[in-house]
């Protein structure tokens, strides 16, 4: 479904990704883990078009999407719930969700389908948002904003969902809730690339995993295998550089 080959990316002159290759198959949940500054967010940003890669290729299905602007990649079916939530603070929860479906509601976009029905279903999935549907997103708590960012990304009915640290800054009970939702999404057969600081929990829901270090993939394998890899365990229990 999504295939990244030898991707390199830079911020200005500073090169950050040095040849990343990864693959997410249809219906799979794949996780990307690694210490702070490893380049996980940058990889996500390059895939969704927020940052133009300097070399390498990104394919979505049989289409080459390398270097396309973000709005075109979104229209091709990649939804990205970015690091730091990035909800639209001056607009209501409902408007944020409708904006998630922008490509479906407008001319030349994705298949429209039942946007109102999807909105109802996402409010079912995130009941905290239902009570607050008319509240401005900027007045939600951090946890609620995170739920909104995920729900908004789902409104695209994406072929591939990119989730960047959906548990960032959340209380333990909410982290549990987020992972429960990820498991439910997985049951619906969604294709997902998940970046998480809770590597253990991420590997537990994922089918496959990649470990990133300093802009490179250092280890990859089926999630179960990574969970038992002593080097991975050491790095994510001790936080050192295995």
């Amino acid at each position, binding site marked *: 479904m999504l295939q990244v080959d030898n991707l390199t990316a830079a911020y200005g002159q500073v090169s950050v990704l040095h040849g990343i290759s990864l693959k997410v198959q249809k219906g799979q949940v794949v996780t990307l883990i690694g210490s702070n500054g490893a380049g996980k967010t940058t990889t996500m940003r390059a895939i969704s078009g927020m940052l133009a890669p300097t070399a390498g290729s990104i394919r979505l299905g049989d289409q080459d999407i390398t270097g396309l602007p973000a709005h075109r990649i979104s229209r091709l079916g990649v939804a990205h719930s970015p690091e730091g939530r990035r909800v639209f603070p001056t607009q209501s929860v409902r408007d944020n969700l409708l904006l998630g479906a922008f490509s479906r*509601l407008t001319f030349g976009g994705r298949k429209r389908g039942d946007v109102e029905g999807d909105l109802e279903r996402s409010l079912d999935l995130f009941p905290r948002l239902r009570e607050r549907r008319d509240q401005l997103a900027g007045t939600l708590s951090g946890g609620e904003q995170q739920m909104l960012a995920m729900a908004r990304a789902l409104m695209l009915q994406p072929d591939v969902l990119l989730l960047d640290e959906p548990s960032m800054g959340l209380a333990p009970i909410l982290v549990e809730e987020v992972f429960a939702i990820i498991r439910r999404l997985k049951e619906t057969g969604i294709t997902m690339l998940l970046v998480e600081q809770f590597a253990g929990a991420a590997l537990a829901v994922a089918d496959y995993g990649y470990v990133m270090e300093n802009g490179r993939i250092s280890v990859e394998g089926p999630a179960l295998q990574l969970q038992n890899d002593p080097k991975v365990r050491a790095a994510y229990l001790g936080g050192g550089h295995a």
Partner: protein
Amino acid sequence: MAILLQLLLSGIALGMIYAVIAFGYQSTFATSGTLNFGQGEALMLGALVGLSLAGTISGGPYLNYWVMIPPVLIFGALQGIVVERVAVRPAIKTRSEFGWIMSTIALGIIFRNVAENVWGRDDLPFPSPLPTEPLHFLGASVLPMELLVVVGALLMMVGVEVFNRRSIYGKAVVATASDRDAAGLMGINTSLVITFSYALSSMTAAFAGVLIAPVTLTGASMGTALGLKAFAVAIIGGLNSGLGVVVGGILLGVAETTTGFYVSTGYKDVPGLVLLLLVLSVKPSGLFGKTTIKKV
């Protein structure tokens, strides 16, 4: 008392024109962080194109005043697109932080020169579509055209606000204004949104031009002072507050008419500038300027 009321009413009419132009400054600033310093020239071009269509200067009138408005709005929108493509987009692309200031000023000067060559340097009369007989109201007299200015300006602003709140395209504009990268992730073509906001801003200015032309002097130099004062209004009211520009516009308009009458017309531009300096030193984000809510 009647005189004060008179000054208030004239001040409000003038202030609403400032507000409409300031509204245009806001619309491009919100989406792109840039302004069209040729906004006054957009107003002037709108008025002169309107005059060519509805006036007698070029063998017309070809259209009556009301029918002339839609083509002028379209002309304004196209002129805004030219400004964005020629003066702003290159600066945004190269991430030149201040390039757009010089280039929009330069383009404004070019537009003024073109207008001088096409329509001449002299002020031209603009036929009024409404009776020029003033209405009397508690001892004050109001031109019907002044009422039209206020109503038209309000309608324009309310119309844009409704578009922003109700339609998915308007919501996309607001989203682009609050977080351009995130808006791109929603599938919104944000550079198109910026082009659109320039079209909108010049369109509102052109509209202000045909509203004010019948009650003022119409000519190539009519826009410069208006554009500058509206800029002051946008700063006084706050670059991100719709209510702010209406209040700021009226404040400035009334300050000008009262100073002009009680002090001297020679000083009528002073209060606005004093107001501007005061606001900048006390509340730099403008009287109604919001500091955005951000949660970490």
